[in-house]
């Protein structure tokens, strides 16, 4: 992804600037430092609020911790985590978030790869049309599918006895559907850049489609699959609307609903909100930073044509 490629761009490569600005370097650096500080401040503020005792929230701002660092305590985390897996609690919501996100990510990555393979290397008519449909689907808002899918689930339930509405599976199915267009697009981009000769050679040797896919294309496509997985993971982890529709009335719901619930009904309990908020952002942060290099390497590899 060119997006993150630029993030990783080493500063050592000297480029002539687009815009030659006259002001002194030190002024520039100060401005940039101020911007960076302003950008970091909200996250740091949240972290500090979650590390202060509940009673202090309304009395003094979190910035007072700079003069009184002894305020900091882990008691909010301890209280919420020691609740254990009580339904609707922080840990339970964390678990539900994981239950929704991990399978969705895996399914999207796998199915996107399969479909993209078919579009990129298949020889059937209408491939291009399908591809354009997929590009079109990329911008379709989820609102368009919510009600019919609820109806679909209900119909399925009356036929088979299992109604996915109100279950994690129902949410996963929905998320996968809306992750596929972008996933197929991304993987198709990557696959199209692979040298055809490799596949031709293997076909001549008698390899079937499946071994072509699993032994050659898939391993080569891992970097792109990794970047897809990360985007999908973060998108599903952070989703609120789909979860609200399908799990809003359930006993177990993901972190986004946990936070939404807290804000709507008990906004004064900021010790819960900030602690939950920190937990909610720490997971994608860890995913992002751990896979950033792999992610970037994959993107760079995929970008080389």
């Amino acid at each position: 992804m060119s997006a993150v490629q630029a993030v990783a761009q080493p500063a050592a490569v000297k480029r002539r600037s687009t815009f030659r600005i006259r002001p002194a370097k030190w002024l520039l650096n100060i401005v940039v430092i101020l911007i960076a500080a302003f950008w970091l401040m909200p996250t740091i503020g949240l972290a500090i609020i979650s590390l202060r005792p509940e009673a202090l929230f309304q009395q003094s701002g979190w910035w007072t911790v700079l003069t009184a660092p002894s305020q900091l305590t882990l008691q909010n985390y301890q209280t919420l985590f020691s609740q254990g897996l009580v339904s609707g609690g922080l840990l339970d919501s964390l678990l539900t978030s994981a239950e929704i996100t991990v399978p969705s990510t895996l399914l999207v990555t796998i199915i996107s790869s399969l479909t993209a393979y078919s579009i990129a290397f298949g020889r059937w008519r209408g491939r291009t049309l399908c591809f354009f449909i997929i590009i079109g689907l990329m911008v379709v808002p989820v609102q368009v599918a919510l009600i019919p899918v609820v109806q679909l689930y209900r119909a399925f339930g009356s036929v088979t006895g299992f109604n996915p509405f109100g279950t994690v599976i129902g949410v996963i199915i929905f998320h996968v559907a809306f992750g596929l267009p972008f996933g197929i697009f991304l993987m198709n981009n990557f696959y199209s850049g692979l040298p055809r000769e490799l596949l031709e050679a293997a076909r001549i040797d008698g390899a079937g489609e499946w071994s072509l896919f699993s032994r050659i294309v898939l391993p080569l496509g891992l970097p792109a699959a990794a970047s897809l997985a990360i985007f999908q993971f973060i998108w599903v982890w952070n989703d609120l609307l789909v979860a609200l529709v399908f799990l809003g009335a359930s006993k177990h719901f993901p972190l986004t609903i946990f936070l939404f619930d807290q804000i709507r009904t008990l906004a004064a309990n900021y010790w819960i909100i900030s602690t939950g908020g920190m937990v909610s952002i720490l997971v994608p942060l860890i995913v992002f930073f751990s896979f950033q290099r792999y992610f970037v390497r994959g993107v760079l590899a995929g970008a080389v044509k």
Partner: protein
Amino acid sequence: MKHMNNFGLIAAGALAALAVGACGGSGGTGGSSPATTQVGGSATLWAEWTSTEQQDFLASLAPFETQSGVTINYSGKGNNTDTAIASAVAGGAPPDVALVPDPATVQTLASKGSIKPLDSILGNLTSNYGSAWNQLVTSNGKLYGVWFKGANKNTIWYNPAEFNAAGITSPPATWEDLLKDASTLKAAGIAPFSLCTDIGWPMADFWQNVYLKTAGAQAYNALAAHTTKWTDPTVTTAFTTFGQLVGDPTNLAGGVQGSLANNYPECVDKVFPKPGAQPQAAMVFEGDFVTSEITANSSNYTGGTTGAGGAACTTDAAKTPCYNFFDFPAPSADSANKGAVQGAGDVAIMLKDTPQSEALIKYLAGPQGASIWAHLGGFASPNNKVPSSSYPDSVTQADAKALVDATGFVFSLDDLQGTWEKNMWQDMLDFLRNPSSSNITAIQAKMDQEATTGLGH
């Protein structure tokens, strides 16, 4: 309302903590409780209560099961009780007895003949309830329900320590007294009210009470059904009266802006803060579910006008803070409406006439079951045979007394407005932002239009 059920849940837990020490002995004393003979068999029972409330309810049914030998199969339906019963009746498989939170459901089912009249079964047990209550569940001259649980939304909560600091020795008895006390509080440098706004429902509750106290229970019900138009002069009077209090921003902590920033329950925290924070106002209006928020803020809070251990009430929540309420006052010209109460409740109806269900209905009409739950906290009953001593403190006693003595009882008007309920809430916020008389006229016209569209008449 969903939020009320949630808070009912928390109320059970919180008040239970308070109540456990206060009551001695087992629940349920004398009164005209019917002699339950051994009946045996079983009965299906539906109600809205789940989780903690379910436990409390089943505890109150325990003596019945022992005395009569009837096994109760209970199912808690939560917010969907009315819908569940309607579909069960339509499907031909209703429970034997059910408790519904909505008297309108009782009327509908009675008119369809889906529930049984109870006059002959109850006999003189019907005198356990005031006429205001029985009237609500009477259809075509026959009684169809017994009230088991009630909630009082006729309450203004105040911080006794702040009242003491302002030299107010007794809470206001009339609306004029309330305004006078507000001035006194302001002279003492204390903000009179912390106004809850949220998405508008606390404002609607407040206004409804003003309407009830100025126009009376009959007019209230007519307005709820939209047989009275919203452009009616009684509605204007209610707005103008309400404006006497909330139209003056010096009466509100933080002024209008500060009030609009108040979601529920932050407004309660401004009067009954957590330890370490100072109260910012002396009074807050909302239903009796407010107590669960107060006790959740700190276990130091004592109900009544003296603090823990008989100490004086302090504004410092870390020491001996108190909470108390007074009945929503009526203007002295409308003192006839003093006893009108707005609230909620759960009424027991009989869907299948069996010996078991008859015995259960008789038990629920008696004070025994109610006393047990009263002891556990988070509960009040309109049954006049439930002894005051069942309630854990003076606040809940007074709360229950207001229910029992109600001369007229009405259910929340906004909940009866169907699809335009949210618009009504928004209109109330509109009023707060601009309480001028021209805006009142505009809002009234708007509300009447919304009512016609939303209710279809």
